[in-house]
């Protein structure tokens, strides 16, 4: 049946379908919000009834714990930047035709990915002083986190570089560009666009993994929460505050990451 045949009727059904879809999607969102509100509300009420919510305590200790968030963010931002630099070098090494360079890069990736992050943190802070290398806690944390994430990101960058179509490199070479120039100006910028979402994911994962450096007394979020909890004999609230801050941080950065990702996707391909 053609549209021209019975135009009025066709349009009505199209509109009705659209309306129904819109209504279904709104209803879905409402239900989603209600479920969250109910579950979280129930949790808070339960705590309150158990006498575990003490606003005075929060006013006293909250700011102290919250202060640790600054250290957490600083630690994570510095470490992810260093990790990306290490990852680019690592990826170039893993793609090198030079056996020595390839072997070094591969050893780095294998060693770091094959041992627990917690062991790496302890090793740098506790074991290295034995051979005369004393590194302060904060710096040890940064070194451990950036080396660890650098190894994982190395493989991501390697895949990203390989995902740039070979024709791109050929076109650049055919224009007389040096190997280095091809990599820096043509291949890497495209590879970075490909791996941006993965870097964002790792940044968010690192916010949470950075809690591990509390074990070497870096005064970040978890360390402060544990300490506040012990001193005030209220670990429950202290750790709840810490968990809440981690959660909010990841939500905020996920939001930015999604926007960045969308902008990249819209970009130029």
């Amino acid at each position, binding site marked *: 049946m053609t549209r021209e045949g019975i135009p009025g009727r066709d349009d009505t059904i199209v509109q009705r379908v659209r309306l129904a879809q819109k209504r279904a999607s709104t209803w879905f969102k409402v239900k989603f919000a209600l479920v969250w509100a109910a579950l979280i509300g129930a949790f808070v009420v339960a705590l309150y009834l158990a006498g575990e919510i003490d606003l005075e305590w929060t006013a006293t200790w909250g700011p102290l714990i919250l202060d640790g968030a600054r250290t957490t963010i600083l630690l994570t931002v510095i470490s992810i930047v260093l990790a990306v630099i290490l990852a680019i070098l690592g990826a170039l090494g893993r793609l090198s035709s030079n056996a020595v360079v390839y072997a070094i890069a591969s050893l780095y990736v294998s060693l770091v990915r094959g041992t627990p992050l917690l062991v790496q943190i302890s090793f740098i802070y506790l074991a290295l002083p034995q051979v005369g290398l004393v590194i302060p806690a904060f710096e040890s944390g940064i070194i451990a986190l950036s080396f660890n994430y650098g190894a994982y990101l190395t493989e991501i960058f390697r895949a990203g570089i390989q995902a740039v179509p070979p024709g*791109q490199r050929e076109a650049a070479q055919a224009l007389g560009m040096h190997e280095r120039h091809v990599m820096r100006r043509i291949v890497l910028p495209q590879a970075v666009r490909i791996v941006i979402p993965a870097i964002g994911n790792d940044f968010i994962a690192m916010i949470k993994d950075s809690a591990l450096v509390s074990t070497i007394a870096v005064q970040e979020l978890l360390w402060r929460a544990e300490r506040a909890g012990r001193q005030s004999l209220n670990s429950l609230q202290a750790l709840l505050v810490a968990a809440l801050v981690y959660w909010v941080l990841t939500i905020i950065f996920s939001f930015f990451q999604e926007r960045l990702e969308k902008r990249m996707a819209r970009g130029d391909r």
Partner: protein
Amino acid sequence: MELGEVVVRATGIEKYFGDHHVLRGVDLEVRAHQTVMLVGRSGSGKTTMLRCLNFLEEPTVGVVEIDDVRVEADPLHARSRRHQEQIRQIRLRAGMLFQDFNLFPHMTVLQNCIEAPTRVKRIPKAEAVATAERFLDKVGLMDKRDEHPARLSGGQKQRVAIARALCMEPKVLMFDEPTSALDPELVGEVLKTMAELAHEGTTMIVVTHEMSFAREAADRVIYLDEGLIVEQGPPEQVLDAPREELTQQFLRRFLRDTET
């Protein structure tokens, strides 16, 4: 147009991919202002031959001379610095156009055109931009100057790629099936640009399946089969009155396939 000096001379080009003997000794000579077209079945080695000329494929044996640069195939030391630099000198003199254009997607049309002139030839930016605008105007895409390639049609992309190659002021332009990836309605604009270049006396080597284009714009047509030149000559001879049985078979099959 009268014939100029020899711009491209390839001698005894052979290429193996593993044990597969793709080129079995091809000689090619192209003079200034000539347009030479390589035709043949797929797998005949014509694309490989073109890619050997600027060493995107290192020939197994043979010599390539373009303008004043002479490079001998050296597959055992292909990565050596001296050899790589010689190859780069060849590439500076030979512009290459690809089937799938290979514009740089993270750069605008203009940036695509000035990247190599400014950073490889170290031409001042203002001068490179002026040159780029001249060639973009020539291919009719001046209004796309600040667009990213993603916003262009296939035909427009290939014309930008032509402008980008011209910006390096090469001695010869080499086209590798430049219209094969295009929607049929976009083939014409690219062929028109290429025909203009040919008639203006640009030295060109073109691998193509477009026989009517070859008939119109080629000075010489070379028919390759199984890695050897079977026949070459002016298009009216090779395409309309081929002497060799293989060429006749190819054209018969080709005409039958394209007529349906």
